[in-house]
């Protein structure tokens, strides 16, 4: 999709299955909103084709497509009551007043808010408005529900509650949900599959485990969850593993796509997969060892992040320890040994990383 000189989205070839909860995950400006507007019909692609249910959607406007869009700011009609908002799509289709009210009540039952039927929108809380927006979209019985970062304006607890609710509604109605967000927690917990996007290109499509444990590109590895980046050159590749020469010594991890001997690479290992050890350079059990000096520590309640100085010019290495009551009190400058299993690390060729 080109806007003048800027290509907002390119080379997307993607199939979303019926009844799936599919998310597009990426930072702002990655093109996910553009994609949503293309699917809903508010924009026509400059190249390529969009098909819903096998039908080519070219030239079909947003009011005629079998999609329903939930806007980021919800866009509920403030001058209508809750029931009128929900029944708007039916009113447009010429459904009579009684049936409209009945349907509105049914949908309110579905989103667990039947008592709000005649209230004004201004009397509703954030979470309630969310649910009215969902009910309004479901009223037109779309084949595809498109959700544009609907939870971004809510506070943490409410967001977590709504995640579960939206997932439950999707399961109950069986409608295909296409969800866009920059919050990977949301994407991973709610979706059947996730597409990670950056700068208009889809980096990887897969289920939550695949995205988290088997990232295909450095962007995915660095954007999804917390990850440690260790830069180096590949020494060799054998049996699905690669050994990388880093400033901390040789380290071994699973070889990702595109890794070749002699090439520049990054070894990714998650903070929660590191452990503190005492002992030699490489354990006999094949564990990798690296030694570093403590920089500072953050206690976050249920876990603690301990930061170690990384290679010169690079970010700190983070170790995450669950709060089992035995978090060591490490002073700045203390040198300790960190270890991890080779299978818990991924080596990927150097490439675009998520910005901090």
């Amino acid at each position, binding site marked *: 999709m080109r806007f003048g000189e800027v290509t907002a989205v390119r080379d997307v070839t993607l199939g979303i299955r019926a009844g799936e909860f599919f998310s597009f995950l990426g930072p702002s400006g990655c093109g996910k909103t553009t994609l949503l507007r293309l699917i*809903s019909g*508010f924009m026509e692609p400059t190249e390529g084709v969009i098909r819903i249910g096998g039908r080519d959607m070219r030239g079909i406007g947003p009011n005629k497509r079998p999609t329903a869009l939930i*806007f980021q700011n919800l*866009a509920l009609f403030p001058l209508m009551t809750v029931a009128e908002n929900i029944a708007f799509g039916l009113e447009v289709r010429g459904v009579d007043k009684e049936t409209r009210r009945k349907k509105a009540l049914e949908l309110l039952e579905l989103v667990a808010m039947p008592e709000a039927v005649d209230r004004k929108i201004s009397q509703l809380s954030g979470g309630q408005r969310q649910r009215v927006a969902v009910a309004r979209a479901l009223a*037109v019985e779309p084949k595809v529900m498109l959700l544009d970062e609907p939870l971004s304006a809510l506070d943490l607890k409410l967001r977590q509650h709504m995640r579960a609710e939206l997932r439950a509604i999707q399961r109950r109605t069986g409608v295909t949900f296409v969800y866009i967000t920059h919050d990977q927690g949301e994407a991973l917990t709610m979706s059947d599959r996730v597409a990670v996007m950056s700068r208009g290109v889809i980096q990887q499509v897969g289920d939550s485990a695949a995205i988290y444990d088997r990232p295909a590109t450095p962007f995915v590895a660095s954007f999804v969850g917390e990850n440690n980046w260790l830069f180096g050159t590949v020494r060799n590749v054998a049996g699905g593993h690669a050994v990388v020469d880093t400033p901390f010594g040789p380290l071994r991890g699973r070889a990702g796509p595109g890794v070749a001997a002699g090439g520049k690479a990054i070894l990714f290992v998650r903070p929660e997969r590191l452990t503190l050890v005492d002992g030699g350079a490489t354990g006999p059990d094949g564990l990798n060892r690296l030694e570093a000096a403590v920089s500072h520590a953050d206690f976050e309640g249920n876990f603690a992040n301990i930061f170690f100085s990384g290679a010169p010019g690079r970010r700190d290495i983070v170790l995450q320890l669950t709060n089992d009551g035995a978090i060591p009190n490490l002073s700045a400058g203390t040198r300790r040994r960190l270890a991890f299993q080779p299978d818990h690390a991924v080596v990927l060729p150097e490439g675009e990383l998520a910005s901090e």
Partner: protein
Amino acid sequence: MREVVRRYGVALTGYMVLACLAWTLGLIVLPELMMVDYSFRPNLLFVEIGGPKDVHTLANYETLWRNTIHLSIFFKTIWGSALVTVVTLVMCYPLAYFLGQVVAADRLSTYLLMLVVPFWINEILRTFAWFIILAYQGPLNALLLWLGLTAEPIRFMSGDGGVVLGMAYAYLLFMVFPLYNAIETLDHNQIEAARDLGAPTWRIHWRVVVPHAKPGIAVGCIMVFMLTASSYAVPAILGGPSSRWFTQIIYDWFFEGQNWNQGSAYAFILLLLCIGFILVMMRLFKVGLADIAK
């Protein structure tokens, strides 16, 4: 009030209040009160003022009911003003919508400028411009003849056509800007949401845009009606002898008949009409005085 004093100090605030009070009292309230008083008194020779014949009476108001010609012109003025209001509303709504929702932000000021520039010219001169355009041998007739739309020139200015057109044009901005202000505050997402739910354009306007723009519509209608009902120059220039406006009668009472008392009574009736219209509109559209002031 306290805030104003705090910001500007007592002296400056005092001056502002006094100046406004003096202006309002001296230039608006007192002359109005004098006029109302005049309207209740008979038209007397100078020497008889203060004498026994100087009583308060409703005679001046009765003249209107008894004079059928004046009465018919009065009702025609009401009807004409209402017509102009509706015509202006219909013309300005699409324009205001275009400015408020369709135009990109960077082009907006250009369009607004194009709209406003003609109004820098004096109203009388603009009305004369229409006089020229609508003349029997004027450019509009020439164009219609040349396009073959009519066989012979139309007399736009005998009858009410010219007056309605002239006034709709003259008070255009008073309708466009309140409408534009109201429509501009509408969240564009709501229009898109309505479209996404399947609504055709007319329904989007009927159910989403117009309800939102109601205060703007009310204000615009009030302004245009008031201005039209009390307009003197436009009907005088563009109207033929058969389409006299009530203001022209008031003028005649004052300057032809030298009967200020009678003229005052008529003027006060016109004022009551306008106030009545405002109250009706406020009720109908459920707008408060504060909305109108904005």
